[in-house]
């Protein structure tokens, strides 16, 4: 018999806010243990939750990017369960009226295009972190992550393979990075994924027994886990190797296997109820429109525009839309220098190279498009040589600077002083008669050597075309 896999995903994404969801503590990743805590986020009695409005902005933005309907009245609810990393023994989340519902994400795989329905996106607070010390047999709690804002994106069970799941997650990541909702960095846990999976005979409309694998945080592990779970389910159905039960399982990537987790709770036991301390949040037209107008173009709309209107090659456009930071910088640079091809090249080659050297991701690009545009303009206007412009670019990655002023201060401005050029040429020719002779005897390379020496003497600050012509003339006369 042939089987099909039915997969639904719950994706947790940490929002890119400065502060936590209900208090003003820093929401930054890392820090000394229990450094980003206050009486509110470590569950002391008497503190009341005050909703961080930026969290709602981002919850709405995520919903809009994923084609959701926005609930104009959205509420927070309490979810009760005991765990030492949950200081109040309840999590404030959204159960009855989540901020965004009924969305859609379009993906493309080797099997073609497909739409994945989004059931809902809700906002909630993260829990803390337990640190286990086997040596002293103790467990300690770090509350830094407690109350860091999250959204949970719940898909319908529309996915049917690891390839689709990866395509879906990559698409989510791209859209949400674009809208600056989150950096979606799986390695830092700012994007985590619960995989709900069941298997049924192909064509059946009855769902099989579902298992859930929690807190997956790498795409390759997710792919392996899905393949393993699918095989395990099919084996159980066909060969009766084990009885499938609805349960939560833990994926062990090193062992390449999933294991059942102790699970005493079912959904009904969370005892959700509306948080009486958080008034319903009413999203009026003004608020809605402000968030909507701040949304970026969708990546493929940008890509089409780059190709059709700005004349970029498809490969270049595709490269740029991998990152919102690149797009912003590209658009800013283009506006100043007016040359899309140049702007794209500087980003794709030169900036990428520097980021690589600094071991930074494309999203960490921190130079302004305006400055890059000004730098390109200096090159195009032949005021700074390309080689020197690259030096200026490196400096721009270290500090914010005005390229023209920096060029001036560092002697990078091309000089049109032909007198200075003539004396340098004369000196170089006089010092290297061998190369002059070689060139005269037909060795083209010798000219390059002489040209390079002149350029070096002039610190690159001359018009190469003019220098070449003057050099040739001097050689002829020599």
């Amino acid at each position, binding site marked *: 018999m042939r089987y099909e896999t039915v997969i639904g995903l719950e994706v947790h994404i940490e929002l890119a806010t400065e502060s936590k969801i209900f208090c003003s503590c820093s929401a930054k990743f890392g820090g000394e243990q229990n450094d980003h805590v206050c009486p509110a986020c470590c569950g002391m*009695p*008497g503190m009341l939750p005050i909703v961080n409005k930026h969290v709602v902005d981002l919850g709405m933005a995520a919903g809009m990017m994923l084609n959701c309907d926005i609930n104009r009245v959205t509420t927070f609810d309490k979810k009760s369960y005991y765990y030492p990393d949950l200081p109040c023994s309840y999590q404030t989340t959204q159960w009855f009226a989540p901020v965004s519902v009924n969305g859609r994400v379009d993906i493309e795989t080797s099997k073609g295009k497909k739409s994945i329905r989004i059931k809902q996106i809700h906002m909630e607070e993260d829990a803390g972190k337990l640190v286990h010390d086997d040596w002293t047999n103790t467990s300690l709690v770090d509350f830094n992550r407690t109350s860091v804002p999250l959204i949970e994106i719940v898909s319908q069970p529309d996915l049917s393979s690891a390839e689709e799941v990866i395509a879906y997650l990559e698409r989510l990541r791209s859209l949400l990075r674009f809208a600056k909702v989150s950096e979606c960095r799986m390695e830092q846990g700012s994007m985590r994924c619960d995989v709900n999976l069941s298997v049924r005979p192909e064509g059946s409309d009855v769902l099989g027994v579902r298992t859930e694998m929690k807190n997956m945080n790498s795409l390759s592990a997710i792919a392996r886990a899905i393949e393993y779970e699918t095989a395990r389910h099919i084996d159980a159905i066909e060969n009766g190797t084990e009885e499938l039960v609805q349960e939560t399982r833990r994926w062990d990537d090193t062992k390449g296997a999933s294991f059942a987790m102790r699970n005493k709770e079912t959904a009904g036991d969370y005892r959700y109820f509306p948080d*009486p301390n958080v008034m319903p949040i009413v999203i009026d037209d003004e608020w809605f429109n402000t968030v909507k107008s701040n949304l970026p173009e969708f990546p493929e709309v940008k890509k089409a525009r780059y190709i059709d209107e700005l004349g970029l090659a498809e490969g270049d456009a595709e490269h740029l839309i991998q990152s919102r930071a690149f797009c912003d910088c590209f658009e800013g640079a283009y506006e100043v220098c007016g040359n899309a091809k140049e702007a794209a090249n500087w980003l794709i080659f030169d900036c990428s190279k520097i980021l690589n050297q600094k071991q930074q991701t494309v999203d960490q690009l921190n130079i302004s498009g305006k400055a890059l545009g000004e730098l390109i303009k200096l090159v195009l206007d032949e005021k700074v040589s390309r080689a020197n412009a690259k030096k200026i670019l490196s400096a721009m990655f270290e500090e914010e600077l005005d390229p023209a002023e920096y060029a001036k201060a560092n002697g990078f401005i091309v000089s049109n002083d032909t007198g200075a050029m003539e004396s340098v040429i004369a000196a170089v020719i006089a010092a290297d008669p061998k190369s002059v002779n070689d060139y005269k005897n037909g060795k083209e390379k010798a000219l390059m050597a002489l040209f390079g020496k002149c350029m070096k003497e002039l610190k690159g600050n001359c018009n190469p075309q003019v220098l070449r012509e003057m050099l040739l003339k001097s050689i002829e006369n020599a």
Partner: protein
Amino acid sequence: MKLYVSQSSAAAGCVAVDDMILTTDQPTAAGSKMLDGYMSLFGAEVVEKIKAAGYEVGGKVNVGEFSIDMLGETSFYGECADESGKLAGAVAEVVKADGVKACLTLDVNGMPRRAAAIAKTVFLKPTYGTVSRYGTIPVACSGETVGVMANTTANLRDVLEAVIGHDDKDGTSLSDEKCALLKRDSDFKAVKKIAVIKAMTDKVDGAVAADIDAFKAVAEKNGIEVCEIDGSELLAAKAAWNVLMSAELCNNVSRYDGVKYGYRTPNYTNIDELYTNSRTEAFGMLLKSAILYGSQSLLYTEKNRGAYDKSLRVRRVVYDYMAKLFEEYDALLMPVCSKAAYTKADTDSNVTLSFEENVYTAPASITGLPAVVVNGVQLVGKAFSDSALLAVAEICEKEGK
């Protein structure tokens, strides 16, 4: 009565706060072994406000465990009772005996109202949202309110005006403009017509009935019309409030798990035992009952959408019913409790007595409407009519008993 006393408690400039209100210089225990000796890192907004108004915090007054009992009888620190065993709420005894200007006390389940009725002090549970709950131990957040108790209405008004006002730290706090409606000079329509809720007054003992009759006489003498209506609908508030209060309580006290602060059992070998034994050893019987009741009411099954949801609907029905009554009447007169006195024996034999006696206090708790207790009776008014209700209390004071 007082658990902790400040060094300088100059009576006239001194306001006491109950053990549900967090202070940074004195422990706050909510009357529970769980929080015995708990020192908060921050003080309640009301404490900051009374200090800013020039008052001293005169001490911490004992309450029952999380203040859901009758008259403080479930406190870890013992009840407040006279030699005959008659219970007195410590908050009222402090006001009467110590001569503090007033006492701020969190009205969760009517305890301060009962204490005021028995001790014949004046108490106001203000309109919900006019006094910040920031820094009060949370129990039933959707209905509890910091109230003010005093010997005289004038003192009560002074302290009330010091503590009302918007607070950014409390998401349910109303605007300064709304809060200002509670002030003396508010031109809120005076109370001209009062409805006595017969469904409640029928059930009280002779002494309480006498208080009600005396009040009626004073009111009528001062040109206030007093009518009688059945008002059985209001009796539904009790069951709904017990569910809502217990559900919120269950959730709010779940943070006391022995992990972070508060009582931790010495008897555990794993996390489940740590939770269970800490809570079993530190919580009293009434609180445990409320936790179980509240937890159960929040459970969802396929057939039953939960007692909690139904209670939310009853809350709305009660509110609408009262709003309709307020089209005709300016205030509703209800007893505060069915008897003029309770003993430890009463509460020992019926641990959850406060979940029955709150039939009189639940309508104002569940709706957040203001309630004044004066001369042993309770007047419930429409939202923001606090000052008008206090004006009636002033009339009673002027007339004496």
